[in-house]
């Protein structure tokens, strides 16, 4: 039993990261119809930038915040430089454009940071804490705390602010939103920036756990997408839950079967959901964004 709890505890931490990436997929997909292939690459940028800024001697808090800003800027630039000029093209073209952004960013990261993983110390040093018989690293608690804070902030943003409601309107019906003087191009800009910022946050809280490397964008992006699909690809909160489920499933498969399973679980889950329940496992939460 304690073994089971241990696996769940480590799975929840990874899963929260997948969920945060998934949130970005959901926001961009609903507001613009685009599946943004570069989603995991914002996480990579955030993580690698955090390491480099810390190495220049910057204190932790400004370094991490700046890294998140860099990731958000990457999202903003993606929209303004690439998506917006092509917005009259087909969705297929827009998706390929995001693939282009992703591999250009990955190649630049390779030239800047090289192939070696970059390490970053945990936010708070110290031995793991024991919760109900499972050892939980302090960084995992940071991940969960930050994820919860992001979830609350998103809920507030989409429910209580005009911009958030406008984005929701755009997601529900783009044409009707336009009739209400909501500019879809502006909403697309917000969606990309917000999605990249959330992925950047995921990157900086993740980097002490797995260290950062230039080609982490694709695997994390794919798992984030799986999390989003698990949640039905309609609700940011569904994506967070989907991420937690995926993380736990992955940890259990690795713990009880074999570590070679790690890569396979996400893909198996993705295939199963697409075959059996394309509307997602959490269809009930689809009605509203909160």
């Amino acid at each position, binding site marked *: 039993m304690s073994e089971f709890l241990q696996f769940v505890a480590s799975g929840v931490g990874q899963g929260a990261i997948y969920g945060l990436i998934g949130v970005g997929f959901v926001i961009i997909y609903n507001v613009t*119809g685009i*599946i943004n*292939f570069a989603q995991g690459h914002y996480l990579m940028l955030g993580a690698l930038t955090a390491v480099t800024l810390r190495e220049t001697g910057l204190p932790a808090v400004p370094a991490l915040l700046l890294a998140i800003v860099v990731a958000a800027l990457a999202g903003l630039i993606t929209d303004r430089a*690439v998506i917006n*000029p*092509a917005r009259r*093209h*087909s*969705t*297929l*073209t827009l*998706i*390929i*454009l995001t*693939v*282009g*952004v*992703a*591999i*250009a*960013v*990955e*190649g*630049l990261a*390779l*030239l800047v940071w*090289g*192939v070696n993983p970059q390490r970053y110390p945990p936010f708070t040093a110290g031995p793991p804490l024991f919760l109900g018989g499972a050892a939980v690293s302090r960084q995992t608690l940071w991940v969960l705390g930050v994820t919860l804070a992001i979830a609350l902030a998103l809920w507030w943003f989409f429910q209580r602010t005009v911009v958030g409601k406008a984005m929701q309107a755009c997601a529900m019906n783009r044409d009707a939103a336009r009739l209400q003087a909501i500019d879809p191009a502006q909403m697309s800009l917000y969606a990309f920036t917000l999605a990249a910022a959330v992925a950047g946050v995921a990157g900086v809280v993740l980097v002490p756990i797995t260290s950062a490397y*230039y080609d982490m964008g*694709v*695997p994390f992006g*794919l798992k984030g*997408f*799986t999390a989003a*699909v698990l949640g039905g690809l309609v609700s940011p909160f569904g994506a967070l839950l989907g991420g937690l489920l995926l993380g736990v499933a992955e940890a259990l498969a690795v713990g009880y079967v074999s570590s*070679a399973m790690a*890569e*396979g679980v*996400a*893909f198996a889950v*993705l*295939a199963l959901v*697409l*075959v059996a329940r*394309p509307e997602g496992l959490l269809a009930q939460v689809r009605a509203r964004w909160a």
Partner: protein
Amino acid sequence: MGLRWWAQPLLWGAVFGLGVLLLPVADSLPFLTRANLVVFALHGIAAMGLTLVMGFAGQVSLGHAAFYGVGAYASALLTAKTGWHPLPAAAAGAAIAAILAALLGRIVFRLRGHFLAMATLAFGLVFYVVVRSWDSLTGGNQGTGGIPDLTLGPLRFDDDTRMYLLAWAVLVLGLVAARNLLHSRPGRALLAVGRSEVAAASVGIDVARTKMVVFALGAVYASIAGSLYAHYVTYVSPESFGLLPSLRFLVISTVGGIDSVWGAPLGSAAVVLLTEGTRELVPRFVSGATGSYEIVAYGLALVLVLLFLPRGLAGGLAEAVQRAAEALGRRRRPAPALEEVEAR
């Protein structure tokens, strides 16, 4: 198309001859080799399959190299381990690739939207992981060697030049097949689905099935290219079929232009030049550059071509030719028919 019966073979013969002329061209350019030409032809064949999928099913595949790998491993294992003749081995690979693609397509094309991108990405990564970890069958990371040279009767394709000529001939055959297909009844259904799914469905075309068939056909193209590749290098390992080659096929198809079967060879030539150029230039500016940094150029090429030349090199070339013809004041036909515009 409006060509006379004798003009078709003449046209394709001329295209083949043009490819042969590339041999002396490659020898005189400093950064090109005959091996680059083989890569150009093989990737052109595989990417032509992807062009059909993107241009006519309106879906992007990010795992196309997996089908290339299916062909390569089928040929490798069946000829090296069980002693099959290369031709039935390649046919078996193509059949397996088609079945896998049809299964994947059945799952994905029931859904609206662009799920194929991520589903094929996952499929490609799973293929890579399976090939790498199934030691007893594929040799794992070490790969499979001892693949015999390809022989067809008295012909033996054992050097760059011969392999290039064979691969180029297969590419031209692939062009002929794709073009003829687009002018057949199923081809017209394809064009209709590519233009408007709703309109196609309204005249009784089974959209999901049509997409599935074109996806399987695209996989067959990739598989045949993979089989040729296996016999060319006589050794296959997982690295050749991972994400990077899949992205490379995507760049070839997109840069070449997805609404024309001519896009794949044009794009493949462009990507060979791009890859060699990047490997030549980048180390001069970034010291100690390692890894597959040519993906920077791939990414930029994708973005720039789609923003400024959305129909790719083939589309741009067609427009330039048309404009030149108009400038000369003699348009050959009043207005090209719809299928001709699409298939050009």
